[in-house]
């Protein structure tokens, strides 16, 4: 499987990164280099092998469904690029 410059444009769009126009050629080559290199995983027979999602098996912890945190509006807004009157200010997203 190899990627084309159009694929890289499409992936960048999916990743919400502005089209890297000046690096499109080199990025396409680099991505293909990495993808070719990981192809070697196809040598491994993984028939019947369960995918591994966590290194150390521990039971998923449960806790009582109680409020343990909150009331931190100002803390949460403290790092906002734009905030007004207790709200985040964002570009218009609904017409």
């Amino acid at each position, binding site marked *: 499987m190899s990627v084309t410059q159009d694929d890289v444009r499409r992936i960048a769009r*999916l990743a919400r990164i502005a089209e890297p126009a000046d690096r499109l050629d080199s990025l396409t080559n680099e991505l293909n280099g990495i993808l070719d290199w990981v192809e070697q995983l196809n040598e491994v027979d*993984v028939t019947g092998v369960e995918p591994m999602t966590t290194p150390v098996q521990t039971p998923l912890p449960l806790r009582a469904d109680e409020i343990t945190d909150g009331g931190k509006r100002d803390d949460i807004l403290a790092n*906002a690029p734009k905030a007004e009157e207790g709200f985040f200010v964002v570009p218009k997203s609904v017409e």
Partner: protein
Amino acid sequence: MTEFTQLSLFDVLEGLEKKDFSAVEVAEATVKAAEAAQGALNCFTFIDGDKAKEMAQVSDARRAKGEAGALDGAPIAIKDLFGVYDVETTASSNILKGFKPRYESTVTQKLWDAGAVFFGKTSMDEFAMGSSNETAATGPVVNPWRAKGSDEKLVPGGSSGGSAAALAAGISYGATGTDTGGSIRQPAAFTGLVGAKPTYGRCSRWGVVAFASSLDHPGPFGKTVKDTALLTQVMSGHDPKDSTSYPGAVPDMVSAVSRGVKGLKIGIPKEYRVDGMPSAIDALWEKGAQWLKEQGAEIVEISLPMTKYALPAYYIIAPAEASSNLARYDGMRFGQRVEGEDLIDTYEKTRAQGFGNEVQRRILIGTYVLSAGYYDAYYLKALKVRRKILEDFNAAFEGVDAILTPTTPSAAFGIGSKADADPIEMYLNDIFTVTANIAGIPAMSVPAGLDKNGLPLGLQVITKALDEETMFAVGGALEHAAGFTAKPEQWWG
């Protein structure tokens, strides 16, 4: 006058207890050394002399009352990936410029609770993606070590390169790092330090900027194995705020350091002998095995046939998780925003300008391998190979107590020397370290010798999950035999 930069963590704690000096004196000396070195080494993103003095005063008062904690009065350098309350935390990225968390990471909170003194944050590869600390938004970090007769600037390794450079320069008494593919152990090896990555889940990830959540391991750098054991012990423990945090008790890692290796079986995996590896590394590895044998361990040849697949699997899993984790940097709630024509344009401009090239490359790879039609072929496949790698280790640990390998396939290299190389060449730095992240098992690097240019080399000890004690016992035995006392000749600040 005490040469503060020469002291180990245990030395400084002993000196404080004996009132040879105060925590304020230690903090002032540390800040002075940090400020003097910064111009040449560029290892800090932030130095805070006032906070250091304030915490040191409180520490002195606590010690006077006989209530000193395990690290009381010792300044510890903090990698810029750990959230420290109201202190700029950028992950060495422009996208987080100005971000001051209103929370404290669990690991740093544990350090402060034990009395450690904050004095500054250390540079790193942007979002911990790199092996040379050249991708930091604040520029490359310089290794205090230089080759004999050369003034070429070398990398300190990465991603925790600022922590490694600072501690190797004698600044502070321990440092935090994070290790996703080798980011503590590789810089430790490049700078003549000890670096440990405990079992996945031992140290909470809460409050640490995420890179690849199933592979991210917080851990420490120390000047000695015992220093490193104490730091690991303090940083470990169950944290309800991290659902992958290990709920069991933390073992006594400090006592384990002097336990010895008599009767232990040490595995030497033949797959870690790679083409083009300098003969000095091979020789050091053999010497390491000999040292352990002389102290009563039995050396056993073992095979870990899946080794060569660990790095390619990593370069699917880590970018996949990173592309998901880094989706949060959208310029809306925190971090930098670059205004665009509309919402999507704002997202795209913010991320294109905020992330550096290596981070963008990995986000793109991750987005691709998770995209419709490719998920099974890449991501799911890599997760299955991941289990095969873990099974390799599990089978090996049926017959041996620990595994000994080199930490890196080379010594520190020149800044910029890999700039035109294929990205994969840089990735290969982690070839020996990444396997322990894939399997989530404890691993540490111990400085063991110098190459012909006078640059430090490390040996790696790997043990089974949750067995940090054996790791520190073997590390202690290696340190004892190696007698590694070399320090970089001071040319900075």
